């Protein structure tokens, strides 16, 4: 295996140089960044912005894990603890996960993947980033002025009547961030419809594009409901208009319906783009065409549609009608099917491939493992009677972290490593990359697997203190989190290092087939010297030829 990976790097090393005339050198200074309409630069602006939020939210998680080392709530007060899990949830969901792959990688590669010079509305794209920054500023303002203690779910009447914290400014931040999402979604939809290169028919599109198209539809259709919900919540909190608080004649369960009508589709906003990345990585690093292209592409659309009609599975014990619960349970089982189809197709793609295990592939394989566990445990929470027991326990925490972190963050890291040479023109150090990927995988499992056990044992979520019998599993989880932390800090260091010291990548270090790899690295301002023409399906890899090449090199 060693000789073969050396052979691959030999090919990489001689495949090209650094393009001097590129989007990074096209303008200098802060102003050239803050006024840019280049989708590639906007992608990088998002990358820095979400990094800030990720770090804040990660510190909140670390403090919680340290507190949970002992059963007593002895390190921080329960008030602080409640604010920590709220800020962790709000920032991770709206200011990291939702924009992560779409706004960073999507912005950077969608136009290049479809052979376009930019997105359809470049100035709107920049405006969307400014909205996002304004939203983030509001969120940080509420954090600095004392934080919010409602949980990221803002359940009423706690959030409207009982919470003594900066609910309104935090909700306003999320409200504004929602508009940033909507605008980015519209931009992507129009771009994918109208700006594809000649010959790039729908069924020749890379699966990453299919995934982001489905994601954008959800962003545009679901996010307005979140805006309405938060607005109603604020109206009740500010002026005492009875909407959700029964003391004012409102219905607290109505809030949950509205909230999950957005937030369940939002779960798919947070995983579909990851699935798109994995389709790119699995094909490239196994030198194989994707198995069942149309099924993988259409399953993204099926997930997007079904994702809208399962929100009530968050409410099996809320006092919703038990018959409504039954409908939502059945539909929730069905939404698992297209996700399963994707996993099976990725697995089948490996068959007769010529597989290398560079960093992006390690993340992709890690994704499949963790996402599969996350998805399967989703069946437990979709099963009505079992959910009655595990609802609002650590079982649910573990389940959705396997999807959001084990899935989406692994995919984001895989995609970031994969496109890093395109973005910067330089390679990250492969050894450290592989090491970080493996540390992340191990640390993740050690952090979150014990939480499945804790949940079934009955430990409720959002508990600042807990009975002593839960301590051992909590200590394991905290130990895992510290390993996971190393797995996230390492890439931060070597990515920054590689900006100046990384080896030159050349236009196509992975010998990948996508259009984005047919232009120089870093790409020129308008992406392509001449508009590319698509003549065939994507992923025309040839594993047999690859084997022969390796045997010749050996």
């Amino acid at each position, binding site marked *: 295996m060693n000789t073969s990976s050396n052979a*691959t790097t030999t090919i990489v090393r001689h495949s090209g140089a650094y393009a001097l005339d590129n989007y990074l050198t096209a303008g200098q200074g802060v102003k050239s960044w803050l006024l840019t309409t280049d989708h590639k630069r906007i992608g990088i602006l998002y990358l820095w912005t979400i990094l800030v939020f990720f770090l804040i939210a990660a510190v909140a998680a670390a403090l919680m894990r340290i507190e949970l080392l002992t059963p007593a709530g002895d390190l921080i007060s329960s008030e602080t603890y409640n604010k920590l899990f709220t800020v962790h949830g709000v920032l991770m969901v709206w200011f990291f996960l939702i924009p992560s792959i779409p706004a960073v990688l999507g912005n950077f590669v969608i136009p290049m993947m479809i052979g376009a010079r930019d997105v359809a509305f470049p100035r709107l794209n920049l405006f969307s980033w400014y909205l996002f920054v304004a939203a983030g500023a509001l969120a940080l303002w509420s954090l600095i002025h004392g934080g919010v203690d409602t949980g990221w779910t803002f359940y009423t009447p706690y959030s409207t009547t009982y919470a003594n914290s900066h609910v309104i400014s935090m909700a306003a931040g999320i409200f504004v961030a929602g508009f940033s999402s909507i605008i980015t979604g519209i931009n992507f939809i129009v771009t994918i419809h109208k700006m594809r290169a000649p010959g790039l028919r729908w069924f020749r599109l890379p699966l990453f594009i299919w995934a982001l198209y489905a994601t954008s539809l959800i962003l545009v259709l679901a996010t307005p409901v979140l805006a309405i919900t938060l607005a109603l919540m604020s109206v009740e909190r500010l002026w005492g208009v009875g909407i959700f608080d029964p003391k004012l004649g409102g219905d607290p369960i109505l809030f949950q319906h509205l909230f999950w009508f957005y937030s369940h589709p939002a779960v798919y906003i947070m995983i579909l783009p990851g699935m798109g990345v994995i389709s790119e990585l699995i094909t490239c690093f196994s030198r*194989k065409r994707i198995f069942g292209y149309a099924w993988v592409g259409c399953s993204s659309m099926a997930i997007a549609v079904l994702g809208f009609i399962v929100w009530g599975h968050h409410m099996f014990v809320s006092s919703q009608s038990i018959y409504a619960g039954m409908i939502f349970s059945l539909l929730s089982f069905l939404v698992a099917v297209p996700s399963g189809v994707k996993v099976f197709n990725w697995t089948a793609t490996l068959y*007769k491939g010529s597989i290398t295990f560079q960093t992006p592939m390690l993340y992709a394989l890690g994704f499949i493992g963790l996402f599969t566990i996350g998805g399967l445990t989703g069946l437990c929470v979709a099963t009505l009677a079992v959910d009655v027991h595990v609802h609002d326990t650590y079982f649910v925490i573990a389940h959705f972290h396997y999807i959001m972190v084990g899935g989406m963050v692994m995919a984001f890291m895989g995609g970031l490593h994969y496109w890093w040479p395109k973005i910067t023109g330089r390679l990250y150090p492969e050894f450290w990359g592989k090491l970080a990927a493996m540390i992340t995988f191990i640390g993740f499992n050690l952090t979150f697997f014990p939480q499945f056990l804790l949940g079934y044992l009955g430990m409720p979520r959002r508990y600042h203190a807990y009975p002593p*019998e839960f301590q051992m599993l909590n200590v394991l989880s905290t130990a895992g989190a510290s390993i996971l932390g190393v797995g996230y800090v390492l890439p931060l260091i070597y990515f920054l290092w590689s900006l100046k010291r990384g080896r030159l990548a050349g236009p196509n270090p992975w010998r990948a087939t996508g259009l984005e790899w047919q232009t120089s690295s870093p790409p020129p301002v308008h992406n392509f010297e001449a508009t590319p023409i698509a003549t065939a399906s994507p992923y025309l890899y040839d594993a*047999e030829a690859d084997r022969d090449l390796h045997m010749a090199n050996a």
Partner: protein
Amino acid sequence: MDKFRLIPPQASTSAHQIDWLFIALVAIMLFFLISVFFPITWFAIKYRSGSDANRSNPSHGSNLIEISWTTLPIVLSVALFSWGAVAYYHIERPPPNALQVQIVGKQWMWKLQHAEGKREINELHVPLGQPVALTMTSQDVIHSFFVPAFRVKQDVVPGKYTSEWFKATQLGEYHIFCSQYCGTDHSGMIGRVVVMEPVAYQRWLTAGEGGESIVVSGRRLFLDRGCSGCHAVNSKFHTPLLEGLFDKPVPLSSGEIVKADEQYLRDSILLPGKQIAAGYDNIMPSYAGQLSEEEIMQLIAYLKSIGDKTSP
């Protein structure tokens, strides 16, 4: 520290039901995990770059394969769904002969009262082998009454009555957790269920100050708070009589017909203008803010107790 365990104590009939279902789910999860992890590992080794495995005639898709790995999960899904739904139906519907306990949640404690009148805070004594039904509401935010050893959980919602039931099968003390985040001291809103021999339970129930049963308290309120002044045969106002009302259909002035359940009675006391019985005027004053959640529950218990009587 207790001995290490993978599942909580199985102390109710539901616990056994749910654990079997969970074990079946774990088996199915393992089946799918193996059917994904095994081929991935195998392919990753056999088709690693540089191996001389045969790669000729690769397949890029097959509708037959796709349809089969779409259909199999659907069939399994429907089976699991049905099992889960049947068990859920059982868990969600208390049997008619259950002992009644009324629970009011507030930040951050549980106030409980047995039908016989005995009150408790953050503790629930129950007899072994008898179904116990909890009728719950909250006087502030949403809470959730969770007993892991019984595998039951139900949100406790202000403005609404929710119910939960179990039949304890094992003596002992078990955790009560509030599992719906309810503010600062959420993790302190805990308590214990004590499962006792029926004889010991009876002794416990009648020991101490005892007090009056919920129905008697409700009747006292009905007289003291002026309800009986109007809802009576010789009332000078035209008002509905409440004997024989509970659980019966009530025609409303809007033309709708609703069932006179706990929720209807509660709304009629607090929001009398919301649903007006057909043939009557909207003359009843609201009792919102004048009765505690416990008192409303006692009144309803009294109205329930006269639900079988016919109006004089």
